């Protein structure tokens, strides 16, 4: 099995295609199937506990989004039709969130930073740094809280907050100083950059990207050609359809679940 990581672009293609599919339809059959597909792909590629946690958060976020969007119906007249409409809109939003959750769990933020076009390199690097330093910051807060307890200061309420905030911030500032020195000394900003190990397009990457494009194309055709119902009627409410060709398209999006999986 090829151990090389999958080219991030393949994942971008997958996520964009899946996102596009979710965008053009409000048919709950397709959408819910996409939830399942996203979970399946995530399960095949997750590597560590941190990814698992982040995916769970996205899942929760998605469900909250569905709930909130559905609840928005209360701002107008409440009817079965309106509620269903709101719910389907929410489901669509939630689907996109879940897809993004999978994307987030299977890609490495630094891999994406390296792919960023030159002018976005620095902001992208800053974002990746923020993500990678955050666990240290959280741990630091715990340590400072303990340290202050051990000299008799309990952080209770707003009065004692400086005892918590200042050491954490100062530590962060020193680390920023060290980091900046290190970056400067190692040539940051010295001119045109090159890319270490431009990632090769492995077979796995192609097997992820191409079916995804095919899936998106199917749905695009359906949207333009109108030969399948992508937006089920809500007034009156009708049972949603499930066109077999479109179902197969969604199936193509599940291919990454079995392809290019990292060794554990």
């Amino acid at each position, binding site marked *: 099995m090829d151990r090389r990581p999958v080219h991030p672009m393949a994942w971008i293609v997958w996520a964009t295609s899946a996102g596009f599919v979710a*965008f053009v339809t409000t048919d709950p059959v397709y959408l819910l199937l996409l939830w399942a597909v996203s979970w399946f792909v995530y399960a095949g590629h997750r590597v560590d506990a941190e990814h698992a946690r*982040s995916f769970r*958060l*996205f*899942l*929760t*976020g*998605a469900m909250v*989004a569905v709930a909130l969007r559905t609840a*928005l119906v209360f*701002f*107008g*007249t409440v009817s079965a039709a*309106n509620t269903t409409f709101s719910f389907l809109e929410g489901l*669509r*939003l939630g689907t*996109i*969130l879940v897809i*993004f*959750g999978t994307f*987030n769990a299977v890609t490495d*933020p630094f891999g994406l930073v390296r792919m960023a076009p030159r*002018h*976005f390199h*620095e*902001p992208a*690097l*800053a*974002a*990746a*740094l*923020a*993500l*990678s*330093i*955050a666990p240290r*910051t*959280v741990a630091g807060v715990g340590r400072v809280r303990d340290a202050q307890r051990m000299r008799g200061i309990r952080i209770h309420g*707003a*009065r004692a*907050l*400086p005892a918590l*905030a*200042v050491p*954490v*911030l*100062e530590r*962060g*500032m020193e680390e*920023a*100083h060290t*980091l*900046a020195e290190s*970056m*400067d000394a190692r040539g*940051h*900003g*010295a*001119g*045109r950059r090159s890319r270490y190990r431009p990632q090769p397009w492995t077979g796995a990457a192609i097997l992820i990207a191409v079916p995804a494009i095919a899936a998106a194309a199917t749905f695009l055709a359906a949207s333009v050609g109108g030969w399948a119902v992508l937006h089920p009627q809500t007034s009156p409410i009708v049972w949603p359809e499930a066109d077999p060709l479109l179902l197969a398209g969604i199936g193509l999006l599940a291919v990454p679940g079995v392809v290019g999986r990292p060794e554990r």
Partner: protein
Amino acid sequence: MTTRSALGLQTQAANVREAEARERRTVLVPGMRIALLVLANVIGLLAFVWPFLVPSIARRVAENHQGDGPWIVAALGAILLALLFLELGRGGLGPKTVALLGVLGAAMVALRLPGFVAGFSALFIVVLVAGNSLGPGFGFLLGCIGMFASGIFVGGLGPWLPFEMVAVGWVGAGAGLLPHGGSWRTRIAWLAAFGFASGYLYGLVMELWFWPFLTDGSALAWNPGGGAWMNVRHYLAFYVVDGLTWDTFRAVGNVVLVIAIGRPVLAALDRAARRMQLRVG
């Protein structure tokens, strides 16, 4: 291993020539580029407030793509954001700014989940103090990058993300434009007042992105045929019902935090910026 890097030196020479033409080590924002930034921000503002200004076009859009509307506007917002970033980062931000953005962005990521009660989120204090200490340009960048990174971390992504980024960026930039006054009291007072106001302003602006798509004819909804002033009234009514209490938590929370830790934290940031010889802008 050779210790002489001939090939390295060759690429070096070429890079030296190219890059010397765009030397930039700080987040200095000179006059001309401020004008461009302002323009980009105005366009961004329009992306928020278009429902009040171009109702007839918007109505057609809303009727045909009622569900898609938010996404289209989001895409616009994303494009604008990209332009803003390109502009701000054009000369190269430099290692000091990138490192500080990383560390302070990490603080925002760390604070996004736990310090969260109704509309209040502790991460606002970070942009408020960072903007106030390190300048509006930095404050804006930090707001954007922090919301982006924390959004990834927390699963809070969606078509609202570009707006969140820009809105928090504005909070950071606004904090950087506040007067420092002659004394700490004045400085903290200004920051607390701004923290209070921005708590509401942020909510006011964020609710706006989906409000137009709730067309159902009620007195709280957007009415394309109604003219700007009527829509503003409708929106405010909607906001009072929907967002006011939520945002009060944020406004009050911001003030509390500014008063509780504003001074020592600002002092620490000022010192760090001085020690790092970061020219703020």
